[in-house]
């Protein structure tokens, strides 16, 4: 009897299972369609932008000397790639950016740790951090050049002057926003301040630290390009300032385009890293 009943049940169970699967497939399909729709509009915007730019340049709607147009820009990039000139500049700039980016995040986080460790120090330093953060640090560039010589070190230090304090402020803030109850768990076991930091504060602030990485990618590029404006004989910032001085705006725009591409690639890398590291949150 029971056997018979379950036999009767099976087809309907099978049917409802099939229905669920169908619904899920339709949902996935719709999602995929939506994503591809967004992507195609994005691509279309890009194509329209470049096409308009090209037409406007060729028909002299815009001043070609100032704004150039895409085919000229791409031809410039292609020439520099073939002649090999581009790679040296690109390598120098990317190197400076990565070093500035990593050191900026590292020093900023370390400073935040020091301040967290001593609440007294944090109260003392608070107004100085705020003032220093709102100061245009780029103006310190000339001093760095005299101190470290016109080159790699001065450029990295210029970048650090931009990234370190803001990193400190953001990371320190996230240390303070960790749920006090998680800290209480450690305290109930008699944990020390160093254990409190290693077991709770640091891992809990990981998302904030990663998100400062995202901000710092942009900051590092600004720092490096400004640094190169001031001192360099190499790098994309140098190409921009050189193009500007010889009135070759095609060179300026092609350098900007390359920066946009490489900066986006770095940003994507950080996003990928974020997804890997924060899988379980």
């Amino acid at each position, binding site marked *: 009897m029971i056997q018979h009943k379950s036999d009767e049940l099976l087809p309907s169970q099978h049917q409802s299972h099939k229905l669920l699967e169908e619904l899920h497939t339709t949902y996935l399909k719709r999602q995929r369609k939506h994503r591809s729709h967004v992507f195609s509009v994005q691509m279309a915007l890009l194509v329209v932008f470049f096409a308009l730019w090209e037409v406007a340049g060729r028909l002299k709607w815009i001043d070609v000397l100032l704004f150039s147009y895409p085919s000229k820009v791409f031809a410039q990039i292609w020439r520099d790639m073939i002649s090999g000139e581009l790679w040296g500049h690109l390598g120098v700039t990317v190197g400076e950016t990565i070093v500035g980016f990593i050191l900026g995040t590292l020093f900023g986080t370390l400073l935040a740790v020091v301040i967290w460790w001593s609440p007294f120090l944090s109260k003392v330093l608070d107004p100085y951090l705020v003032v220093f953060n709102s100061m245009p640090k780029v103006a310190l560039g000339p001093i760095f050049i005299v101190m470290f010589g016109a080159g790699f070190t001065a450029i990295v230090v210029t970048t650090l002057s931009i990234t370190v304090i803001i990193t400190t402020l953001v990371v320190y803030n996230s240390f303070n926003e960790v749920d006090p109850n998680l800290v*209480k*768990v*450690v305290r*109930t*076991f*008699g*944990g020390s301040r160093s*254990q409190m930091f290693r077991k709770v504060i640091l891992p809990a602030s990981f998302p904030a630290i990663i998100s400062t990485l995202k901000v710092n990618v942009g900051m590092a590029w600004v720092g490096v390009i400004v640094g190169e404006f001031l001192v360099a004989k190499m790098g994309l910032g140098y190409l921009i300032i050189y193009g500007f001085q010889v009135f070759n705006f095609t060179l300026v725009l092609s350098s900007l385009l390359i920066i946009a591409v490489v900066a986006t690639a770095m940003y994507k890398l950080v996003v990928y890293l974020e997804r890997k590291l924060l899988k379980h949150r």
Partner: protein
Amino acid sequence: MVPVVELKQLTHVYVSDRKASLAVEGLDLAIYPGEFVSLVGPSGCGKTTILSMIAGLLTPTQGEVLIQGQSVAGPTPEVGYMLQQDYLFPWRTILQNALIGLELTKRLTEDNRQRTISLLEEMGLEGTQDGYPSQLSGGMRQRVALVRTLATDPDLLLLDEPFSALDYQTKLQLEDLIAGTLRQKEKTAVLVTHDLSEAIAVSDRVILLASHPGRIKRTFDIPEHIRQAQPLLAREQEGFNELFHEVWREMESSEHAD
């Protein structure tokens, strides 16, 4: 018999920018091995303050806390503390969460690790140890928090409204589990709760506190047959309702007096 916890003329004053206020005044209390004692009372009676002082998280302004006859100066491994919510670390696996106390007290041996794993199994959490807290229900998470507290093998457990964030059904199940586990392991426990029926169902003794400042108003000894029953069944025992109303009336009268 040496009491597990002894409070002697315990007084605590909170000082803020605006004023200094008396939270707890002149509290005397002794709790003996294996006892399950509940602290109940209106808000502002200093329940959590008392628990924090027993745990060594707060220093009494006057008087002292003795654990096994020793004066308390800070958190000790003999005392386990269970918070209102699980507060599991989301970046740690269930097992890693359960082991945090052993890590912090530097007692993470292979034996202790195995013991913690079997504790997880005892609590019906087998198969979850490599998962993350976000994958567990509220009741399961609070059970992990219980394992985390028990893993360091404390003699005394302080329970700070550990059931308050759970839905009713889960709460009843967990009361049974915790009361049963603590009785079986012969732990001493102090429960802070605002739920009178919970206090009566799980305890040997219910201490009613009065507020502003916190002090003991009256102590109720729970009759043997209610004590022996599981918390869920205790609620159906003869005399339970009468006791509930007696505690309730006493608490009401103290609130009106304030």
